[in-house]
């Protein structure tokens, strides 16, 4: 469970870092952030396909595995 500890530490570290690094952005200053190109996933449809292909061709775990499904990918 060394890995697990490492991950939690990493996550907390990044959380603290980002929290401390961020400036306050007022509501009327968020125009850029609201643009479609700034979306965390700007092309969700294609991303969906990519993830399915990677899932059936690679052994990496997912950070969104709570989605479920995906089938066997046995080919």
């Amino acid at each position, binding site marked *: 469970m060394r890995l697990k500890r490492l991950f939690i530490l990493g996550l907390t570290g990044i959380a603290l870092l980002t929290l401390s690094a961020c400036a306050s952005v007022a509501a009327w200053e968020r125009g850029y952030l609201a643009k479609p190109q700034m979306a965390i996933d700007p092309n969700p449809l294609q991303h969906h396909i990519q993830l399915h292909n990677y899932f059936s061709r690679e052994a990496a775990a997912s950070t969104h*595995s709570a989605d*479920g499904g995906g089938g066997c990918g046995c080919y």
Partner: protein
Amino acid sequence: MGLKQEKPLQGRVSVVCLNSPQHRHSRTQTRLSQPVDTASKALKALTSAAIVLPGLMLSSAQAADDGGRINFQFSRYQEGTRNLFGAPNNFDPIRADVLHGNGLFPLTDRAKFSFNYTQDTWSGATPITTSPLAANPYQLIRANTPSGTTVVGASPLIFPRGLLLDRDLNPLRNNSEGVLAQDTRSVLVLASASPETRHQANFGLGYEWDEAAINASAGFSLENDYRSSFGNLGGRLDFNQKLTTVKFGAGYTSSNISAILDHDASPYLTKTAFDRQIERRGGSEILHGERQDWSANLGLTQVLNKQALVDANFGYTHSQGFLENPYKAMTVIFVDPDILNNGQTTPVPGDVRALLEQRPGQRNQFAFNTKYIQHINLLDAALHLDYKFTADDWGIKTHTFDASWVQPLPFGWMFTPRIRYYSQDSASFYNPYLISQQNFSRQAFDSFGREVWVDSLNPATEYFRDANFNLVDGAGNPVNEATLLVEPKTVAFDPGLLPGNFSSDHRLAGFGALSGGFTLSRQFAKGIALEAGFEYYTRASGFKLGGGGGNGFADFDYYVANAALKLNLESMSPSNPLGITLHGHHRSHVKDDGSSDHHRHNQPAGLMYAHMLDKPGQFMVGYRFMYSRQDGRMHHGAHAVSDQTVVDQGCNDEILCRFTPTYMNMRMHMLDLMYAPTRWLNLMVMPTFMDMDMNLRELDGRPPRVPGVHEHTGIVGHSTGVIGDTLMAALLKLYQKRGHRLHASLGLSAPSGKTDIELRRIFQIDGGAIHFGMQLGSGTWDFVPSLTYTGEYDRWSWGAQVSGAKRMEKQNDSGYRLGDAFQATTWGGIDLSRWLSATVRGVYTVQDRIHGDFNTFNARIGPMDFPRNYGGEFWNIGVGVNVNIPGGRFVGNHLGFEWLQPVHTDVNGFQLSPKGALAASWSYTF
């Protein structure tokens, strides 16, 4: 809808700081397509923006959207050929066609319903195991041609004979000079698969508060051999004036595996480790397993400044149960230790066997990814940088680096190039193949050193040989050997001398991969967007971080191309917000000349070309689904017939039938796109996607098997999919008077569906072209005209249509053409309420038999392989309902359902009789 209008929005899309990406996307699009200059609109936007929440991305990539969203997508995955090191490679590489639709509908301002449907059909050759090249795991397939015998391909051997090893257990192979020399190369052993289809559907509900959201979804994934059901719960909390968002989710998946082992490979597979999980039924061996996956994730999105944000996610998955791939085997080379240690230097024979792979019964996976997104002022673009690290207790660590540049362009275009690098370590139990210093099986001896013999029909009793080689029992009494089937008793290898887990699945090997691609999308008016994407991926053992993975034999590449239609229902304001149904009741819309602006959209759902748009500039986007089934007894003409009749008469004079279909299902998905350039002309395009499945049985009284001739074996059916023919039509209004209308449609069907789908080759036996009825299109350009009359008065509506299909070519590329078809139908309908109507109709269809025949090999095993057993006369009664949403949130939507019940059928030749068809349609006019 270009960038010009976007500028004033900046600073006004204020509260939507940390929205989910989709959400921001859609809201911005919404604003682009609607003027936002009035105070009430701005207030409404602000209010709705405030309740908009991020984080639905957990459950569905397309989740959040205020006004509703529907997406259709098609994608093709195509692999390149694998390297077989000189063996003739006649294997089709893997191809998967994926159809994907999803939608999100607001139930209230805060509650949403979403659905996702995915259907993928794949076929091609996939590795079953890895073998030393020196074992020659491919056997040449030769065919007689006019110029003599030629090699047409190779069939895989998972039990090749004659491998020799040196004393250090390196494989030996004749080199170019014919000298036996060390050759340590490995090669994938490929096995072809006939097409298979998977269906997945899931449904979700979400609820949003001002600074939080929760969503739940559940669904299932169905394949012949693999069934999963899953559920998940997720949510989001906003803090710090929405500069910080915490996302969380948990999910559970339960899967049932019933893998039908390859009938032809199975006799050569060693399955002893799974004996208790294998069921034998109908000539097939079915490997059963269960698996559970629990997963959880936790994420954080943080706005760093006005132009940058970071997103980090942590995921954990625990899996347990049957984690193997039931179709993968490990090649184990058994070496006799007595020969190996006999003190000589001559080559040692290796006994090459394939054992079903054995993976650990559980797996714990951890994943962490972080993404940084920076707005680039100069180009108004965004740079996305993503890194992911994962590790699991199988020893696999992975690194993924991903960068993309999202560039908006004028006229609503968006271009996103992308590059990705991936590297993974090998699983601790991965090996291309194993060598075990023991015999696969050996003679059994008892405690006195005597050879043990058994009766193969009753192996529990042991026998021995006396000094004269006569059979005796345990007490030394002579036994009459003539009454028994005696054979030497053998002892199988000791699994304890093999590793506890082993797999040669190259996905568990160490390798790297480089991929790149782009997405191009364009936003059109009225909330319609088109998207296309392409990605090229190349896997190479040598790309692995920190040195090569040593499995270059498994390298391959693939490309993926996709195209999508995206509809934002909020932006698609219906030009006729009251809906068409209203006009049945509100005659005030009828003009002075007696013509009405609109006619009602309440024609039966199974009817095509029956509805026209009325206003110039109007669009209609629709989806049609059709399901039909045939099963039961075989019919000849209008009557059921016995198996013996089918055997004798169902095929032809030279060939007796051996098999007959037990059922056939067909599902069609059609995208219905219509545009009205003028009042009297409508243009229509209809891409069709379909999948079919069929099963066969042996006929009673069939002729005996002949070696080398294709046989359908086991309980596996066939399936095919997914691109069908594409319809294009022009609809012309010919006559219109109060309550009456006549229109014609001139249609053309383009042969985009395949007609050369083949059953897989089974070792030396060619499967040949799959049955006519399982091919996906006509293969010819077809003329599809129709003439439709519709009438309406008060609550009543009625109509009649004649339509036909005329093949415009003598034959398709496969050598045949489908029969021409004619259909006549008439119906009546009544409005049951303001939004609901019911229809009843009669349908008569006649279709000619197929002309010509396959110009490639076709196994001709049953009636479905003969052209004369297609077409016929069909009388159906249809009962349907139509729902037109006249107002409110879903205004402009139309839904229709119809069931078609066969009342009389007179088939050409020998066929299954139709059991009915379901048609469902949805359309949205705007």
